[in-house]
């Protein structure tokens, strides 16, 4: 006991504080990150009476240090003695919530929100709420911005008088002189509405919402759109028309594209929040307008929502709404001038087939898919191909296969390797849907050609693609179609291609099974141990290690072991290293 106390006194706070003051930022940062260690060493009482006052008084530092401090203090409750004392953490966090740098302030607010939950209702009113008030009436905009994030966490747990004050403060900040503060308030409007009593939502929040939604700055107006979702969810259906819809309609036609973009981006949420009736009467025409917007950004955002919007339409007349109102707009988007719009559409358009059923899909959607499959932009084509499974379920893929093939071939030979990579990744899926016959006839050559692509990432992807194909089509198919070609590459003059043989064998041996591996692959690997390029030789060692478990012990002892032993005395050190590793992993020593 005495010894332990002696230990403690070895580290007086002065030394620790000296560390926190060190000239080197990195060292200060390290110390702050170990603040919990310091607090632990000091014990709860000295943490409260010495460490926290020090931290509060000396908050002027690099933002990086402050950020770490703000984060630490959020987890400090136990270190100051538990919930009873948690309010001791408020002063330093209050200062941090007023600094200029946004990340620091946000972190301080996050920590304040966290520890607010650890306050008792009494402490919340005595300590926390006054802090919120001070921040809300601060001189410089930063403290008022921070206050916006704190109202909703204390509101539910305070008395009704204090509640009234909080509402008043929030109102004031919503009409703050500084746009930064109005933005902060607008972004917390939805969150605050959720904790308010319904009557106050109507009397307090709605006027604020309306005002923010017609703010002179579009950056404020667009945040009101987000709040709209939460507010609409809270209100009973009969109030939506008078309280929310005028504002929402106005936002959908705002003169700033940023606001319209926001409406498009939040469309599914809005649709759910306002319910089927309003959707039919109001949102359908609004959505049509967004799909025809003059800014490509807005059209792309709306195009992204086409499937979700249609899915969530009321079922009774869903098909009719889609066919008469949405589909004509979609048809136009297929030949949009902007590639982002087309590719956004291509990523969801296939989803419409499940909603519209077989006949409509064949008659109306199929021509659109085919047009997009021939689009000049590879991303559009890729997005169509990547969603083929949706159509497959409804009409089967055969309908598309004639157009699919040229599209795939073109993508497979695209000059951008990322495009080639993307199409390779869809190969197993396509193979599954198109069937082995079609695949052998049309796509097999492509898959083999990728093995000798000049970009490594493509060769690598082609290798793992083969594995997936073998898993789908079986070992026999592999033996007849793939293995001979792969093994043939072992004699290629280009050593990179010879190595591809080894990589393929690594990937395929398990799927192909012992028989094929031992009889066909192993001899080729062993023969390659005499390759003149060291990289090939050490990859032989790696391959042997990899396929060893598939082979029987006889082959291992009589064939693999001598070769690995030979490689283990190779002149190249890497070859030696990998040979020895293989020997020890396969337990051949």
């Amino acid at each position, binding site marked *: 006991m005495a010894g332990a106390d002696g*230990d403690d006194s070895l*580290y007086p706070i002065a030394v620790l504080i000296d*560390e926190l003051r060190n000239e080197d930022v990195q060292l200060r940062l390290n110390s702050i990150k170990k603040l919990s260690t310091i607090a*632990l060493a000091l014990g709860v009482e000295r943490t409260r009476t010495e460490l926290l006052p020090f931290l509060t008084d000396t908050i002027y530092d690099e933002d990086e240090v402050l950020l770490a401090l703000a984060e630490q203090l959020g987890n400090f409750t136990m270190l100051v003695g538990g919930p009873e004392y948690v309010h001791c953490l408020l002063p330093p966090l209050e200062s941090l919530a007023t600094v*200029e740098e946004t990340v620091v302030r946000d972190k301080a607010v996050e920590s304040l929100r966290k520890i607010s939950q650890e306050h008792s209702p009494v402490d919340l009113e005595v300590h926390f709420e006054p802090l919120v008030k001070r921040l809300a009436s601060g001189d410089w905009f930063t403290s008022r911005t921070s206050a916006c994030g704190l109202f909703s966490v204390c509101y539910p747990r305070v008395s009704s008088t204090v509640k009234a004050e909080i509402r008043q403060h929030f109102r004031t900040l919503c009409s703050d002189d500084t*746009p930064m503060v109005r933005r902060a308030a607008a972004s917390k409007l939805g969150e605050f509405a959720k904790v308010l009593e319904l009557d106050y939502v109507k009397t307090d929040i709605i006027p604020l919402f309306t005002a923010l939604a017609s703010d002179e700055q*579009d950056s404020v107006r667009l945040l009101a759109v987000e709040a709209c979702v939460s507010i609409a969810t809270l209100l009973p259906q009969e109030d939506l028309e008078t309280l929310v819809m005028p504002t929402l309609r106005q936002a959908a036609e705002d*003169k700033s*594209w940023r606001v319209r973009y926001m409406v498009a981006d939040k469309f599914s949420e809005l649709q759910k929040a306002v319910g089927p009736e309003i959707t039919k009467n109001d949102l359908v025409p609004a959505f049509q307008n967004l799909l025809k917007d003059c*800014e490509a950004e807005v059209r792309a955002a709306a195009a992204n929502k086409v499937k979700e919007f249609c899915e969530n339409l009321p079922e009774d007349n869903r098909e009719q709404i889609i066919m008469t109102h949405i589909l004509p707009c979609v048809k136009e988007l297929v030949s949009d001038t902007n590639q982002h719009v087309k590719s956004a559409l291509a990523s969801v358009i296939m989803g419409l087939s499940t909603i519209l059923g077989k006949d409509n899909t064949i008659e109306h959607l199929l021509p659109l898919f085919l047009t997009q499959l021939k689009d000049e932009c590879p991303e559009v084509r890729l997005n169509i191909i990547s969603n083929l499974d949706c159509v497959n379920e409804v009409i089967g893929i055969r309908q598309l296969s004639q157009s699919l093939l040229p599209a795939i071939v073109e993508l497979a030979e695209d000059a951008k390797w990322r495009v080639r990579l993307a199409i390779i990744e869809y190969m197993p899926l396509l193979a599954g849907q198109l069937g082995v016959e079609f695949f052998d006839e049309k796509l097999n050559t492509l898959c083999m050609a990728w093995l000798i692509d000049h970009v490594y990432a493509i060769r690598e992807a082609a290798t793992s693609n083969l594995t997936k194909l073998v898993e789908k089509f079986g070992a026999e198919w592999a033996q007849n179609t793939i293995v001979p070609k792969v093994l043939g590459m072992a004699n290629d003059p280009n050593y990179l291609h010879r190595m591809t043989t080894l990589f393929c064998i690594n990937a395929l041996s398990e799927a192909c099974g012992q028989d094929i591996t031992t009889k066909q692959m192993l001899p080729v690997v062993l023969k390659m141990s005499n390759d003149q390029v060291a990289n090939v030789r050490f990859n032989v060692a790696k391959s042997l290690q990899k396929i060893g478990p598939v082979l029987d012990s006889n082959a291992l002892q009589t064939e693999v072991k001598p070769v690995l032993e030979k490689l283990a005395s190779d002149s190249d050190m890497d070859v030696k290293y990998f040979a020895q590793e293989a020997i020890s992993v396969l337990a051949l020593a």
Partner: protein
Amino acid sequence: MMGDRPSPPRAMSSAPTTSPSVDKVDGFSRKSVRKAKQKRSQSSSQFRSQGKPIELTPLPLLKDVPSPEQPELFLKKLQQCCTVFDFMDTLSDLKMKEYKRSTLNELVDYVTVSRGYLTEQAYPEVVKMVSHNIFRTLPPSDSNEFDPEEDEPTLEASWPHLQLVYEFFIRFLESQEFQPSIAKKYIDQKFVLQLLELFDSEDPRERDYLKTVLHRIYGKFLGLRAFIRKQINNIFLRFVYETEHFKGVAELLEILGSIINGFALPLKAEHKQFLVKVLIPLHTVRSLSLFHAQLAYCIVQFLEKDPTLTEPVIRGLLKFWPKTCSQKEVMFLGELEEILDVIEPTQFVKIQEPLFKQISRCVSSPHFQVAERALYYWNNEYIMSLIEENSSVILPIMFASLYRISKEHWNPAIVALVYNVLKAFMEMNSTLFDELTATYKSDRQREKKKEKEREDLWKKLEDLELKRGLRSDGIIPT
């Protein structure tokens, strides 16, 4: 066809107008691999809503009607020019576009030459016409990272009309008949706010006109000055802390440069706050190179007004000193030299320690341009004289870095420069220099020992934490 573009406001002529040329060391010019982009042009959303062809009834020329009828005709022409055309559609309304262009030209000449045209009724019509044409939501920006050396700016498609509208508005504001007392009813806060938003235009030609317009408005409308300053504040704060995107920062700073020049002494608290809380944080923005010259000019203007601001400014710069971007570091060093050029010796003493600790770090930067830029300070006579006066403080701070670089730096040019600096120090204060050389080794050893002690301290603390943790788990009884 039309007059020259307005020359920059006189008060600003000393402000740097060209964007700073930042030397690139990159040997692999990206230009060679990148395809030359076509000049892009864009237009605002507002133009595309009208599908029908536009018809304007041609009016007679102003000079062809008797002067009593001219004011009435002037108003009619202003009203006609409120019509805006879609310039993205290069084929539509060709005739009417040409008619509006010639009308605007006529209006420009008319306000430049004519006398007695500015009736009271003309003011709202002029402002309305200008508002209809220039105020619009700017379209989305394609390039997130605009590189002035690589990228072509996107140009405004409707420029053939827009330019004339700006030209007209400037002539109007500069006209001898112009009366701010009448105009202030129409050129109000809302007007200014919309005008400021246009500074985000990607078209540099437009920003250039806006600069002149705003400067004229600031000069003529005393009642709007505080408001303009506050809104610029908000734009900058949003730029620094929220978006990092705003095209017209350089232009706004240029205007501010001349505004600061005119501040009365002693400076108001508002202005000092602007310096410390807005201008200094502007240094943190990634695209600093696009407006650094203008920013540095503003800072130096402030310091020339009130030298006592030197300390907070330099401390601010040190706080935001770039940690990873050497290009920005070079800019900071350049700005610091501009500040040191005007620093008062009494202010220098207050700040020399933290300042030279930073300079010492720059001098030992592995990036030779940073080291070189810092070492160039020793070629500046005024800075040299300040260093000499305070050599007993500065030499110990600088010595270790200089000594080490003289042995270790990879770049021979830097080593040569460092030798010169060391020589200068030796001549300045040979006793101290000899002392520092003699104790160099033991000083390094002391530092290492301190390092070791620090590590031990943390280790012991961690052990303690572990023990306490165990104890509180009840494993070790207390």
